[in-house]
């Protein structure tokens, strides 16, 4: 197996792109990544694209070919593959690209993620996202995606001392970070009252506990570490690439408010990187809902179960804290175009490690990305570090 490095990253603005098509979102992100990497289209050996549901959001399948075509790579006949694991599709695409390079099969590989979600109404959007859970035995009963995470939150708050205000602070903190991120969908700060006064979506989760509906794309370029310096002076090394699964339905989990796939992926990733928790300087975790960030920090092992609310309240996970979490603004404030999110997490960590994060810059040499599909049926964890 070869070591792998990220040599370029690109990301569109995350927002409601009323005037930009699915394919053009991808083209913009891909072009930015190739420019950043100093790679020409002709040098690209393969393409992986994470996308959850273009079939329902824009009624388009066969995304691999479409993307290669509009990126101008179809005439080179390179392999172009769509991968899907609901909201973890982006992380999965990155992992496929890493595997392709590590194996020696390909040298220059683009991993991308794209989702165009605002072409459908709220009802269809809610129903499409519910497809990330068990359609026949959760969705049929009337479960929505926020509803499932609300049941996690209710179980969690019944068992551990998490206050409603601590939960709201996750959103407040992520909006503070998003306000400093030029690509973020929401760039205004909010207060705990903003969260607590927002409409109830699924008790106890309110509108400001939930990540938004977003259009966007992100892309990164990976190569063998030994070739990285041909392209860039600031390669970022992939120290671990791990994927884990769990039951598709929340009701079948061993513990409703512990994502065992996160626990497994986190442990394996640290072992693969030969690192300990204290070696990790920053996290990009999958905060599709505020409760998800609380669970992620704990399930990755950065504190005991029941403690992440207090850490958040004390500012440990803020930009100036000991363990900055979601410097990008997370899914909550940066936005959550589901297939693109996992790639945006890699984009953010690479940007931070290179020292190019501007007003949201933290002191980071090693970062961990945590991308979740559904309510935890797929978890992808990557650890990246400077080299």
């Amino acid at each position, binding site marked *: 197996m070869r070591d792998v490095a990220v040599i370029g990253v690109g990301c569109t603005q995350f927002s409601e792109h009323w005037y930009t098509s699915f394919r053009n979102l991808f083209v913009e992100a891909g072009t930015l990544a190739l420019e950043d990497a100093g790679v020409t289209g002709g040098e690209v050996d393969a393409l992986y694209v994470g996308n959850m549901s273009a079939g329902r959001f824009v009624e388009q399948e066969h995304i691999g070919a479409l993307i290669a075509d509009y990126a101008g790579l179809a005439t080179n006949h390179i392999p172009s593959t769509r991968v899907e694991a609901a909201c973890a599709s982006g992380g999965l695409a990155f992992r496929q690209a890493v595997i392709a390079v590590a194996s020696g099969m390909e040298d220059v590989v683009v991993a991308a993620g794209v989702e165009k979600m605002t072409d459908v109404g709220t*009802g269809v959007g809610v129903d499409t996202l519910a497809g990330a859970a*068990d359609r*026949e035995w959760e969705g*049929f009963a009337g479960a929505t995606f926020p509803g499932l995470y609300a049941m996690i939150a*209710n179980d969690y708050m019944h068992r551990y001392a998490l206050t409603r205000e601590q939960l709201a602070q996750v959103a407040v903190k992520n909006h503070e970070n998003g306000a400093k991120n030029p690509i973020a969908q929401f760039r205004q700060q909010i207060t705990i009252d903003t969260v607590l006064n927002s409409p*109830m979506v699924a*008790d106890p989760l309110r509108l400001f506990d939930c990540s938004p509906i977003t259009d966007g794309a992100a892309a990164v370029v990976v190569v063998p570490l030994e070739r990285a310096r041909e392209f860039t002076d600031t390669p970022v090394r992939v120290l671990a690439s791990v994927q884990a699964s769990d039951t598709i339905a929340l009701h079948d989990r061993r513990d409703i408010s512990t994502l065992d796939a996160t626990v497994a992926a986190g442990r394996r990733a640290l072992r693969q990187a030969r690192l300990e928790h204290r070696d990790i300087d920053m996290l990009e975790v999958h905060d599709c809902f505020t409760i998800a960030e609380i669970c992620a920090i704990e399930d990755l092992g950065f504190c005991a179960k029941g403690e992440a609310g207090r850490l958040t309240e004390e500012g440990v996970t803020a930009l100036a804290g000991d363990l900055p979490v979601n410097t990008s603004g997370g899914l909550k404030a940066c936005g959550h175009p589901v297939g693109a999110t996992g790639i945006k997490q890699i984009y953010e960590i690479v940007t931070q490690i290179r020292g190019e994060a501007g007003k949201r810059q933290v002191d980071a040499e090693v970062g961990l990305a945590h991308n979740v599909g559904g309510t935890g049926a797929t978890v992808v964890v990557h650890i990246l570090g400077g080299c």
Partner: protein
Amino acid sequence: MSVSRFWRKIPQRYNLIGTQCTTCGRYFYPPRSLCPDCRRSGTIVEHQFRGEGTIVTYTVIRTASDLFEHTTPYVLAIVRLDEGPNLTAQVVCRPEEARIGMRVKSVFRRIAADGESGVIHYGTKFVPAE
């Protein structure tokens, strides 16, 4: 959900019929045709659940998909059946009535009406049993 996809599971949905692995004794609802513990060495038979259980966790859905939007707010819960397995179902009660640990029993109810196909889906809901 398509008509054929729904009808395929009618006995299970209407009557709370799941399965049991007689090799290890574990019960499954929703039904499984492969025991995750015994896999190919497990023997699976149908099992009629009694329909009594306890709320593990719940929420009140205020924003739903188009199929359920006209029925909001409704209580959605994970119910642990007394035989062991958990399932996701609605609980017919006022939102402020629901609580973790509440005893419930199953009832046969209308789940949703599909406006486009005109099909009414029936299935299992739960009601308070205290």
